């Protein structure tokens, strides 16, 4: 950061470079928020609030850029500010062309800042903003002068020569007191020009003669000069010396001023304020000095999470060991262990929530992307988002962006039809893509839905046959046809468009999601649209689990998927169709999965017979359906630290991860979603 240079570096002895980092981050956030606001604004009826908010953002960036000496950023933002100022004062009406140019300027600012951040401030490579600036100015001045609809004119009024510039301020009072007159603003910061003139910007519907009449209450007529900004000079009520400068470009401008004589301010501040805290003694509590949020490096957060994970393991181990102790003798110790478990759980919840970020972070980039994409494709596409507040671990958020982007582009490119086709099909002219996120049990469900043409069964079948994919025939059911999309290199796009259709997409999407221990599914209705559902485990790290025993082995079920458990007699389990087994639970029949079969648990022969009579049934719910799992015993509930099996090994079907038990052994965590899916086919 030290090498980034700017004009402010030579701010005599003060090294401002240490603040650059915060400024870049802040400016980045400001630019993002400006873009979001521009995309959301209704160009036909923008609210004052929205315009003000966007103005403030540009103003803020300009202030910082000017302070830290990034002059190209300052200049460009100044142009934006001018345009936005006129907009927020309702001097201009918002048009789509303005939104476009503001968005474009935002992009240029982003790249300017990026260059500074990367120490790439090579003057020759600086973006040429002249054309952009010209366009901004054109839009900003487009409706100047006399073109304001309600018959008001824009004037420049010069008053003087005066010895006391404040006299002219009285004219401002007039405008304040008489509301219908219009606006009257100084352009000279309250100071007299070298010629002793004051200058003001005025909009009014009144005629010049009327104005002069009014002004003459305070200043003499000869001192008033009115210029209509449409270009023609009018009503020189008295000549002033030529060449009155439009701005007070004083070299001696100190850039500050006082309303009261600073000398007259009380010198000693002590004891003049009633009810103030005594200076000596207690220090001001530190909490008041800082703003309410803190920037922390990701490494520190990750380390904290790891440490909490280790703590949970140790605490689990202690809890388990404590079970063997005599409650009477070790009463205090045992209550301490219970307390420890509670504290650890709270700490873990707090820490995990640090990393949770709302999905809006992901969704935010899509309005802009879709807007540009829709323009490029010549289609009309609207984006809806649902559940932006749904939170997701930061690590997952970063990794889900690429796959989601690909899915959205697919929907826009291949899903949504052209406006003509849509109208011909009786659909609304604009297509809609809906992004949604919701928590479901221990997972998050993210969906990309479009109301486009849906998948074309025939084309996919034809393509699959062409590629010689195995198992492909006309009798395949729809879900099996849609599943072909996931094959590598598959694409039914006629031409490879710039956007997508290169055929490298969908299988990479699926792999990326699988790497996150997630799953993805495709559903489609021809003519109506398509939907891609991505399911991700919510937290990678800590989970409530139920330990179950099968033979000598221990497995963990996510407690979130466990509905109930009960003892069952083998007789109650009935076969269906020869191979499947079901059990009646209250009014419904649930498929039964014997975990000893699923996991091929080795059994001693006499064990098998022993267990013929009673077994334990655990009902789990996942993927919207329930099945009953047959296990030997329930061993308890506790928190488990989820360890990734794929870090050093690979994905195992039926298993979503592993954990370390109190005794140091590894236990596998069952993928209930996977089991449910298997049981249902």
């Amino acid at each position, binding site marked *: 950061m030290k090498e980034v240079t700017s004009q402010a570096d030579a701010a005599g002895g003060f090294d401002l470079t240490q603040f650059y980092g915060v400024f870049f981050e802040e400016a980045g956030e400001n630019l993002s928020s400006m873009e979001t606001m521009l995309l959301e604004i209704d160009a036909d009826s923008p609210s004052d609030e929205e315009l003000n908010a966007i103005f*403030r953002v540009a103003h803020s960036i300009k202030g910082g850029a000017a302070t830290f000496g990034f002059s190209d950023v300052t200049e460009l933002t100044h142009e934006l500010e001018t345009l936005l100022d006129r907009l927020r004062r309702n001097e201009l009406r918002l048009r789509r062309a303005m939104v476009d140019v503001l968005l474009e300027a935002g992009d240029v600012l982003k790249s300017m800042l990026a260059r500074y951040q990367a120490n790439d401030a090579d003057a020759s490579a600086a973006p040429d903003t002249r054309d952009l600036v010209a366009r901004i100015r054109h839009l900003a001045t487009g409706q100047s002068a006399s073109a304001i609809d309600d018959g008001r004119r824009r004037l420049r009024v010069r008053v003087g020569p005066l010895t006391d510039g404040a006299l002219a301020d009285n004219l401002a009072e007039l405008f304040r007191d008489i509301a219908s007159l219009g606006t009257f603003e100084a352009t000279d910061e309250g100071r007299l020009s070298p010629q002793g003139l004051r200058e003001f910007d005025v909009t009014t519907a009144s005629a010049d003669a009327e104005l002069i009449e009014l002004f003459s209450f305070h200043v003499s007529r000869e001192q008033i000069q009115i210029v209509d900004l449409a270009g023609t000079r009018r009503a020189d009520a008295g000549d002033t010396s030529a060449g009155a400068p439009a701005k007070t470009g004083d070299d001696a401008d100190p850039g500050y001023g006082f309303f009261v004589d600073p000398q007259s301010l009380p010198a000693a*501040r002590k004891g003049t304020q009633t009810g103030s805290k005594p200076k000596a003694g207690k220090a001001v509590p530190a909490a008041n000095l800082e703003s309410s949020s803190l920037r922390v490096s990701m490494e520190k957060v990750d380390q904290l999470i790891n440490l909490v994970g280790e703590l949970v393991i140790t605490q689990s181990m202690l809890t388990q060991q404590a079970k063997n102790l005599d409650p009477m003798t070790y009463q205090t110790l045992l209550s301490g262990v219970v307390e420890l478990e509670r504290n650890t759980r709270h700490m873990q919840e707090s820490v995990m929530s640090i990393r949770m970020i709302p999905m809006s972070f992901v969704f935010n980039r899509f309005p802009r992307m879709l807007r540009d994409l829709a323009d490029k494709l010549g289609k009309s596409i609207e984006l809806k988002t649902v559940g932006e507040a749904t939170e997701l671990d930061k690590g997952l958020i970063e990794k889900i962006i690429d796959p989601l982007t690909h899915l959205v582009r697919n929907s826009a490119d291949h899903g949504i039809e052209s406006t003509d086709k849509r109208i011909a099909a009786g659909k609304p002219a604009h297509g809609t893509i809906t992004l949604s996120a919701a928590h479901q049990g221990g997972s998050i469900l993210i969906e990309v839905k479009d109301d486009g043409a849906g998948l074309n069964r025939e084309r996919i079948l034809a393509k699959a046959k062409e590629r010689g994919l195995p198992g492909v025939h006309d009798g395949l059911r729809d879900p099996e046809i849609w599943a072909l999309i996931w094959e590598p290199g598959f694409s039914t796009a006629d031409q490879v468009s710039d956007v997508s259709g290169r055929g490298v997409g969908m299988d990479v999407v699926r792999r990326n999601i699988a790497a996150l221990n997630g799953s993805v599914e495709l559903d489609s209705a021809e003519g109506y649209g398509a939907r891609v559902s991505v399911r991700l485990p919510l937290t990678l790290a800590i989970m409530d689990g139920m330990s179950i025993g099968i033979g000598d082995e221990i497995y963990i079920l996510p407690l979130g998927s466990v509905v109930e458990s009960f003892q069952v007699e083998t007789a109650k389990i009935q076969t269906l169709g020869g191979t499947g087994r079901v059990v009646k639970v209250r009014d419904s029949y649930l498929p039964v999965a014997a975990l000893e079969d699923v996991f091929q648990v080795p059994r001693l022969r006499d064990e098998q017979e022993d267990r013929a009579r009673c077994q334990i049934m655990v009902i789990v719910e996942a993927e919207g359906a329930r099945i009953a799992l047959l296990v030997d015993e329930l061993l308890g509930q506790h928190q488990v630290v989820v360890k990734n099996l794929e870090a050093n090994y690979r994905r195992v079907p039926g298993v979503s991860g592993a954990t370390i038990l109190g005794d140091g052994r590894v236990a596998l965590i069952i993928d209930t979603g996977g089991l449910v899916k298997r049981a249902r086919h």
Partner: protein
Amino acid sequence: MQSILAVDDSASMRQMVAFTLKGAGYNVIEAADGQEAFDKARGQRIDLVLTDQNMPRMDGVTLTRQLRTLPAFAETPILILTTESSSDMKAKGKAAGATGWLVKPFDPERLLDVIKKVIR
């Protein structure tokens, strides 16, 4: 040690101002908008208020007006930072009871100069 309340919605500006002022021996209390500044100001001894004008929730001029209603802040020097070139804003500041203004961008030295003129 004298205390200065520095109000600006830009974190980088706040940091720079706080750094400059602390380096010169002042105690600095920061706030990101007028409302936060007003809440923090009550019950504290403040020798000078330095506030940006354009901020969300409550702007600098409104903050000035609000502070002046508190007896403890009747005489406290309040300086408004502004980039706006119109004196309309300054007129508003004056009407609200501000002591003076400072044009942005400013460099740290000018900031200290101006402050020294106002509190001793």
